[in-house]
């Protein structure tokens, strides 16, 4: 069918007009907000899992305490570290969001 066909012209014009009307900055904003929230949530879950895994590792194998002490650079007591590390882990996603200027 030729592009000069009146029906083709009518349909193409009508679709283009409709698409122009549907262009919505608000929709784009909502989509991108959801994408950003999703990225943030995924990082948070990842950091929380890592933090819990570290806590489990330390409580199961106390020999790893020297490593955590060294990592933190602070002499936490044996009782404090299993609590402190997961708490620290929970702040990792916040730090990631702050540091990542693209998100």
């Amino acid at each position, binding site marked *: *069918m030729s592009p000069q*066909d*009146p*029906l083709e012209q*009518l*349909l*193409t*014009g*009508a*679709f283009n*007009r*409709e*698409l*122009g009307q*549907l*262009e*919505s900055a608000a*929709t*784009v904003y*909502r*989509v*991108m907000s*959801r*994408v*950003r929230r*999703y*990225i943030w949530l995924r990082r948070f879950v990842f950091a929380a899992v890592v933090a819990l895994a570290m806590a489990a590792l330390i409580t199961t194998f106390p020999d790893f305490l020297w490593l955590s002490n060294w990592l933190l650079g602070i002499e936490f007591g044996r009782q404090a570290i299993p609590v402190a590390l997961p708490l620290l882990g929970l702040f990792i996603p916040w730090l990631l969001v702050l540091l990542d200027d*693209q*998100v």
Partner: protein
Amino acid sequence: MEASDETLVSQALNLGDIAAFEQLVRRHQPRVLLLQRRLVRDPAIAEDLCQETFIRAWNKLRTFRATGRFQAWLTKLAYNVFLQHLRHASRIPKHMESIGADGQLDRDCLVMPAVPIADELPDLPKLLAVLTKEEQTLMVLNYAHGLSNREISEVLGIPVGTIKSQIHRAKDKIRHRFRIGVTP
């Protein structure tokens, strides 16, 4: 010069460039929204499904192969989101069922609503109102998304021949209903 879809996908994927993905959303949002509106009819649900399509696109960006067109890949994703919505809503997609393996339509779908013929150029809703739901979907995929018959066939899982004949029939309906190029 505007970056191609494939370049933007590559940037979003390899560099984690969310701005590139935002550009893709901006570019394709009207088409996806138009398709969802034709499929579900409820503007609020269509908006939700449009958002869901792009969230899924972000998650599945790695599955996109640069050999195909991003537009076709995204349209298939949008259609799958719609089908999932139907399953969740436990509704039977009546208009989808009406396309049989041989491409025959139910008689109900062929009943055309009375549309007044206006003197001025009819807008899209008026033009599409004379078509069945599946014909409307095909026209949206063909004209708004710019998909070829083969790409539409891949999206909807309908044979290419059926698509060709349905688009032809849809155009005929519009031509006769609005007396375009038809001598009285």
